[in-house]
């Protein structure tokens, strides 16, 4: 090779680098992982279109995972094990945040958020759900929150002799209503409460926590005491709640074993059984009506006239008289993502006014932005907003500590044991106490008073 040829080659190479490098740096791709559903897809696709228009050359790769909530969490945790598979942006359930932050799967956002001019639009109660319990930093921007109640079919309760305008004051009132339905309406399941592993987090939160948060002392006397930062074992409230579930199950007030064991029953209930009038009462979240609206997964025009909502009473009507549980999903970022500013840009696009509004309306959730809650379209399209927003004052958040996902699985197992499994409350609760002690470590556990 002569000198001229060498020169030519090196010039070519240099030119190639000069052209190639900036091009590489410009064309960035962010991968987004979320649990597939019509409303999340709608928001993600809108945000992708908006973001790609504002950042020519950059692309968003949407990975919708169709699976149960439990498998979604396992899959995302496994993806997060290595930088080559970790997604840049994660649609993250608020209750996983503390654990995932401690594992180093999430990037703290406080600094970036303080520079975002829309951050003060977010409700302080809802922001709690995006924070780590350990360091208090924000890891997820909340997209919506929720509260829970007992939905009931007015016609069925009327026919059963309970009355169309129903508000139980104690747990016993719920059992009494269920007994009347059982007696007077054959073929109708009196009440649905999720009580098995198949129900996953819905069992823990909608099933058990709505009960134990209504026992004397609430969650801090039955599950986790935030003052001492210790988990509670041997609590009476916890056992009372299990006994309530066992009574409901043993008397045949719950849906069939087959349904309770079916992980897709949550859809079957809301999209078939309830519209068909086969279930009289069901403890569920505020978002559930979104399935029945035009464009939902199971449109049902008469839902608003047919269904009523009752607050969940405390055990004996003590305290505020009522209780509820809250949670919600957030949008979070992996610390392994290369261009964090760009990733944050996409997150703020997902959580901007337009997309938050779409999310609140289509998911049927309680808005977390002040401008969304005040929006007329939101108030018009969500006839339950008033009732469910009022529950925020009596609501509780889950003790979203690191081991919460494990405690949650343990709770589901314990509920399943006393119902479908046929165990006694004392056996199952004793096993729960032992396993909780093992999970948390004996120094992080205290006996209930």
């Amino acid at each position: 090779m002569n000198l001229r040829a060498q020169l030519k080659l090196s010039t070519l190479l240099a030119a190639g680098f000069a052209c190639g490098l900036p091009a590489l740096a410009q064309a960035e791709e962010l991968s987004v992982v979320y649990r597939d559903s019509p409303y999340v897809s709608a928001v993600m696709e809108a945000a992708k279109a908006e973001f790609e228009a504002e950042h020519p050359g950059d692309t968003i790769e949407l990975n919708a995972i169709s699976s149960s909530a439990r498998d979604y969490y396992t899959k995302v945790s496994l993806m997060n094990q290595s930088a080559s598979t970790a997604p840049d942006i994660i649609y993250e359930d608020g209750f996983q945040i503390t654990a995932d932050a401690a594992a180093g799967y999430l990037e703290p956002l406080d600094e970036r958020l303080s520079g975002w001019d829309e951050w003060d639009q977010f409700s302080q109660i809802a922001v709690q759900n995006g924070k780590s319990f350990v360091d208090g930093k924000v890891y997820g921007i909340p997209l919506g929150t929720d509260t829970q109640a007992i939905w009931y079919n007015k016609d069925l309760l009327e026919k059963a002799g309970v009355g169309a305008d129903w508000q139980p004051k104690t747990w016993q009132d719920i059992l009494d209503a269920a007994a009347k339905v059982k007696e007077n309406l054959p073929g109708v399941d009196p009440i649905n409460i999720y009580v098995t592993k198949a129900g996953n987090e819905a069992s823990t939160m909608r099933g058990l926590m709505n009960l134990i948060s209504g026992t004397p002392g609430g969650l801090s006397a039955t599950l986790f005491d935030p003052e001492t930062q210790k988990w509670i074992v041997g609590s009476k409230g916890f056992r009372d709640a299990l006994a309530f579930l066992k009574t409901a199950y043993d008397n045949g007030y719950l849906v069939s074993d087959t349904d309770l064991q079916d992980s897709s029953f949550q859809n079957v209930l809301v999209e078939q059984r309830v519209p068909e009038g086969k279930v009289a009462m069901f403890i569920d979240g505020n978002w559930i009506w979104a399935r029945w609206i035009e464009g939902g997964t199971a449109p049902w025009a008469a839902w608003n006239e047919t269904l009523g909502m009752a607050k969940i009473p405390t055990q004996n009507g003590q305290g505020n008289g009522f209780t509820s549980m809250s949670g919600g999903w957030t949008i979070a970022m992996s610390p392994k993502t290369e261009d964090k500013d760009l990733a944050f840009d996409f997150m703020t696009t997902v959580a901007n006014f337009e997309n938050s509004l779409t999310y609140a309306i289509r998911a049927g959730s309680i808005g977390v932005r002040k401008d969304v809650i005040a929006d007329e379209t939101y108030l018009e399209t969500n006839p339950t907003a008033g009732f469910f927003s009022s529950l925020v004052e009596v609501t509780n958040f889950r003790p979203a500590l690191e081991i919460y996902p494990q405690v949650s699985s343990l709770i589901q197992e314990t509920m399943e044991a006393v119902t479908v499994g046929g165990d006694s409350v004392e056996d199952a609760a004793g096993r729960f106490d032992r396993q909780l002690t093992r999970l948390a470590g004996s120094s992080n556990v205290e006996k209930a008073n």
Partner: protein
Amino acid sequence: MRIVPLAPATLMIVAFFLVPIIWAIYTSMTNLGLSGYAARNPAFIGFENYYYLFTDPRTWAALGRTAVFVGLSVAGQNIVGFCIAYVRQMATPAIQSLASVIVITAWVVPEVVAGFLWYTFLRGDESGMNQIFDIFGFAHQQWLLTAPLAAVIVINIWRGCAFSMLVYSAALQDVSSEVLEAAEIDGAGRMQSIFGVILPIIRPVIAINVVLTTLNTLGVFGIIWITTAGGPGTRSETLPLLMYNQAYDFGLIGYGSSIAVLLLGFGVIASLIYVRLFKVGEARNG
């Protein structure tokens, strides 16, 4: 230089077998988690996982169920497999091929698909089985809920008997017709010739097949996971199901690994028996 040809095989065994095993044993002595602080900073905790494993009644219950599941599955697969093979060899060649195709189909269908077929066949009031029961006027059954362990054992026998059938078909061909004819002339009936002549002759094959099916059955996960997921409660939870539950539902990867090591131990014992039987068989044939 004579060991050079062994190098690829050795490398494969080390990379894909030995390293994962050592890794699993090491992990089982840590508190490694799927998420949380212990996912990033797992600590070495010695035999703590094993202490909890052996003091938890749930482990013993799962171990008992695994023993029942493996014992009955292996017995069922071998008996059914032998019967099909025995009846099949007496049929015409056309029927023989047809029988093989039907039985082997059950075996080649992926585990997930087989599990799902059974799930839809058995689950709920409108299941295939209950529709058949309607025709005969039988009461509806929910065996996945009322007898989950028995149900998964039957499913596993259904799926696994093809393997045993193939093994026994081959073995039966080795039983010389002279011996059978001699037995017949001596006045042996069918049962007498099976128990007095055929079974003693193929005894080494039976022994090896029992160990092989045991090894196959110890790790069965997919079929149980899809049909009952170990439930209701924990009534069909075998060790592989318990392992998955602890590792992924509870996020206790370290603890799950200790169950994996326990399972591995059972596998090693079964393998040692297999190797020993194989040697005995070879010595006799040689």
